């Protein structure tokens, strides 16, 4: 028992230390690197707290995609900031280039505000009831009627289907937003990277099929164990990004229509379910008949995986390549 407390203390100390240094360190590259380890420690925390679903997603997002996004942006911002960069002096990237650095008063004010906010939050958290089962009894009561055996999947794709559907809409909105940054609507104009050296090519030749297998595996796990469309989608995204990095066309090879189709498919399929159920006379909106729910959930999951994979990888590739060309469309 004491050992587990020790583990908790270590884990929390690591989380706080990493996030403190990540925000405080003068070196931007260090912050980027620390951000990746922040994701790692968070996944350990999810495992410790009995949430392997989240750990899977965090492993893929925190260690995989967030790293790609941050490294990519870092390189874009500081192309020359290689090597001995502890004393890095290049132009800082700010919203208001003219505004002065925060003075002592600003820092003091921020510290007071945040200090009082944190104190209030600590009091609030200490005031929370130490036990509470939330909606667990209801979920376990209706789990049989949901069409899947894994409670988290049941909540995501049946009880709170509406949220999940809207969340795919958020993804679509983000990708469309990035397209506005680029002033383009087509991925094929993005340069395909030059073929890498032999080592990376061999590595990717081994890794990519494994990842594809893992995608299918996670998807299959979803109905009875931790796993499912989100986690599978994120791994798919990681695979597509890796392929792009190793000089393959990946999603940048898709035609505009096909790419848009994959991007919107998850949202559109859930929309289709919503429209059909709204038109069906005896059913509530977003309701599906019990005997079909397993089928519907599986179908939605497969399409959602594809959409999440394509959307997240487009997000990564586009934001690495969010280099617009003013005036030249």
């Amino acid at each position, binding site marked *: 028992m004491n050992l587990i407390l020790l583990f908790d203390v270590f884990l929390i100390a690591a989380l*706080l230390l990493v996030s403190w240094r990540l925000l405080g360190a003068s070196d931007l590259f260090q912050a980027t690197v620390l951000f990746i380890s922040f994701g790692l420690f968070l996944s350990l925390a*999810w495992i410790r707290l009995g949430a392997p679903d989240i750990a899977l997603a965090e492993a893929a997002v925190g260690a995989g995609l967030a790293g790609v996004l941050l490294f990519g942006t870092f390189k874009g911002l500081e192309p020359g900031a290689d090597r001995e960069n502890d004393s890095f002096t290049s132009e800082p990237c700010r919203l208001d280039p003219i505004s002065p650095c925060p003075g002592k008063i600003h820092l003091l004010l921020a510290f007071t505000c945040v200090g009082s906010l944190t104190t209030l*939050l600590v009091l609030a958290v*200490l005031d929370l009831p130490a*036990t509470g*089962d939330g909606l*667990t009894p209801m979920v376990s009561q209706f789990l049989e009627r949901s069409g899947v055996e894994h409670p988290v999947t*049941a909540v995501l794709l049946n009880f*709170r289907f509406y949220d*999940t559907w809207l969340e795919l809409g958020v993804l679509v909105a983000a990708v469309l937003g990035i397209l506005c940054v680029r002033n383009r609507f087509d991925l094929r104009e993005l340069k395909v990277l030059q073929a890498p050296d032999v080592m990376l090519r061999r590595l990717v030749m081994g890794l990519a099929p494994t990842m594809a297998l893992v995608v299918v595996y996670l998807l299959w796990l979803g109905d009875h164990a931790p796993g499912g469309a989100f986690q599978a989608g994120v791994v798919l995204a990681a695979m597509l990004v890796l392929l792009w990095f190793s000089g393959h066309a990946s999603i940048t090879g898709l035609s505009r229509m096909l790419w848009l189709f994959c991007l919107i498919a998850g949202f559109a399929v859930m929309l289709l379910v919503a429209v059909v159920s709204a038109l069906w006379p005896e059913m509530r909106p977003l309701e599906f008949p019990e005997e079909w729910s397993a089928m519907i959930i599986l179908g939605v999951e497969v399409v959602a995986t594809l959409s999440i994979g394509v959307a997240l990888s487009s997000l990564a590739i586009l934001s690495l390549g969010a280099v617009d060309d003013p005036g030249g469309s």
Partner: protein
Amino acid sequence: MSTFSIYSLAAILLVGLGVYGLFTRQHLLRKVMALNVIAGGIFLLLISTAYRNQDLFPDPVPQAMVLTGIVVAISATGFALALVRSIHRRMAESETDPSQDSWDQP
């Protein structure tokens, strides 16, 4: 101290650190990271809430909320980083050639 209270306190401290970083750091990449630290703290609070119930399985509703939240956070982060990079590039261009910006309003 129960596991729940340890982790929820840690979650709150993460949120505090993140907010402080967001207010005081000027660099845009750092602001985006600070927002992600805040998000991590909130997710940790939700999951430690779910952990309180260990009878059958941990409460799946906060877990579903966090899964949704992670995807929302990574999409917003990707969007923000794309904007950061684009703005940085425009600024660098306009320093060398002020007439570059031909995309002003028609």
